């Protein structure tokens, strides 16, 4: 069931669109903001709120890479693996992340601290290689500052 807060936020968005179905993505993002990810139950909740079947909502949810259909850790690391970051050595950054966190891309650490995911170009190419942790952008990464940056997230 949607919480009162979620309901309120979804209703506030309703005025911005011609049809309630258009709210599907906004509603998924609102639910994810509060619950961390989008469970099957969340899919049904969103469907009821915007007038779509759970299958229709799921077809939308699974299309967009920033809607998480599996549980994620307390912090999500998105490492850019697009061309500018590749030229500047993002493979090394990814390998170091895998090594330090003892996970592969797509996985979450055992202590639920970090989930590691690739992301297309973050628009930080002049400071490549770059990662985004939660909502924070970090550029000009190397093996040393990466450690310090990770330490800021507990």
């Amino acid at each position: 069931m949607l919480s009162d807060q979620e309901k309120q936020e979804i209703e506030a968005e309703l005025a911005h669109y011609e049809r309630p179905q258009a709210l599907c993505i906004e509603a998924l993002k609102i639910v994810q903001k509060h619950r961390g990810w989008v469970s099957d139950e969340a899919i049904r909740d969103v469907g009821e709120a915007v007038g779509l079947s759970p299958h229709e909502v799921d077809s939308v949810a699974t299309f967009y890479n920033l809607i998480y259909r599996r549980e994620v850790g307390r912090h999500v690391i998105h490492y850019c693996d697009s061309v500018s970051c590749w030229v500047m050595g993002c493979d090394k950054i990814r390998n170091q992340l895998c090594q330090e966190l003892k996970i592969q891309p797509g996985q979450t650490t055992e202590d639920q601290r970090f989930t590691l995911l690739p992301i297309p170009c973050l628009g930080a190419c002049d400071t490549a290689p770059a990662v985004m942790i939660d909502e924070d952008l970090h550029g000009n990464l190397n093996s040393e500052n990466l450690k310090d940056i990770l330490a800021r997230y507990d």
Partner: protein
Amino acid sequence: MDRPLTEWILSESLPIGLKRYEALGGYEAARKALAEMEPKAVTQTVIDSGLRGRGGAGFSTGMKWSFVPLGPEVPRPKYLICNADEMEPGTFKDRYLLEGNPHQLIEGMILGAYAIESEVAYIFLRAEYHRSHQVLTEALAEARAAGYLGKNIFGSQHSLEIHLHSSAGRYICGEETALLNALEGRRAVPRAKPPFPPVVGLFGKPTIVNNVETLYNIAPILQHGPEWFQKRSLTEDAGTKLYGVSGRVRKPGLWELPMGTPLREIIEEHAGGMCEGYQFRGVIPGGASTDFLVSEHLDLPLDFESVAKAGSRLGTGTMIVLDDRTCPVGMVHNLQKFFAHESCGWCTPCRDGIPWIEKILEAIDQGKGRLDDIDLLHRHVKHLGPGRTFCAFAPGAMEPLQSALKYFEDDFRRHIEEGRCPYHE
């Protein structure tokens, strides 16, 4: 004013607010146009200026606006959408504008909406631009409080509301009809054209989709006139352009320069030349989906026409440099991996073809390729070319591949013949 897009920007971390924007002359153009000009005259001014879309396709902005039906009989609301879904790999120009001077976007959107008689607008912002979201939210609130958005803007009959929509990912959202589907809450697959969005767009209503940098040009054009705008350029394509450089150069960055600035000047002067120990080998001039240019093109003026004549596209104008120690096969493999990932899956050649290309490139890159793989890649370039797929995604993906096969064929052969990547020690 020589740099109309960036001259007022102090720094990305400190966006200029409404007060400062107005003190510099901001909102004068919109105020004047809404009081004194007919919507058609605004469109005509933009046509006369020669402004071409800065998202990459380079279509005349004023012409696009002129396709929107006007008058009381037309279905309402009509929509203006700012495409701020900056996801072209190697591109970081729109973020700089949004986070430095958000009111110039709002003023451009007021003018654009007035020209096409639209009363509802959206800014479609990529999800990862959290800072831009915050800056835009504050600027929109300021503009609303001042009466520059909402009912009867500047005391005119014209009303406009701008909504900020934060996306949920996927590169294909930058394709304008896919963007419309995303805004309608659907999977972002492209739509068939015709009908074109200016006639049948968002929710079936007439809709204009313009790139961020395009809209930043509108207020200066109205303020200073089409002739002034044309004089900002070194060539036939009018205005200034945001050029960016990333890769192994001394000073990667972004600069607003006259349209038609030569490639050599951008790389050697503005980007400070190549890093110590690295040589220039080539460049993709305008994001992932443009053809490579090489040393012989260094004196090319970077405008729409000249780059097209050289067999590539200006695209977004933000270039990625290939140096002599980076493997061109690896670079193209990285690009095709991106495109394989981001294909929306709607049409078969793109959904199935690009992953095959990626697998072939991976094999070659790892030294497991066969000589006939090169022919196979050439065939795929043809099969995924213009006219063979539902939208421009796959043909765009083929651009860096076909030009890499042309300019770096020896590198492909060496990988296959030596059974290894010659760039790996």
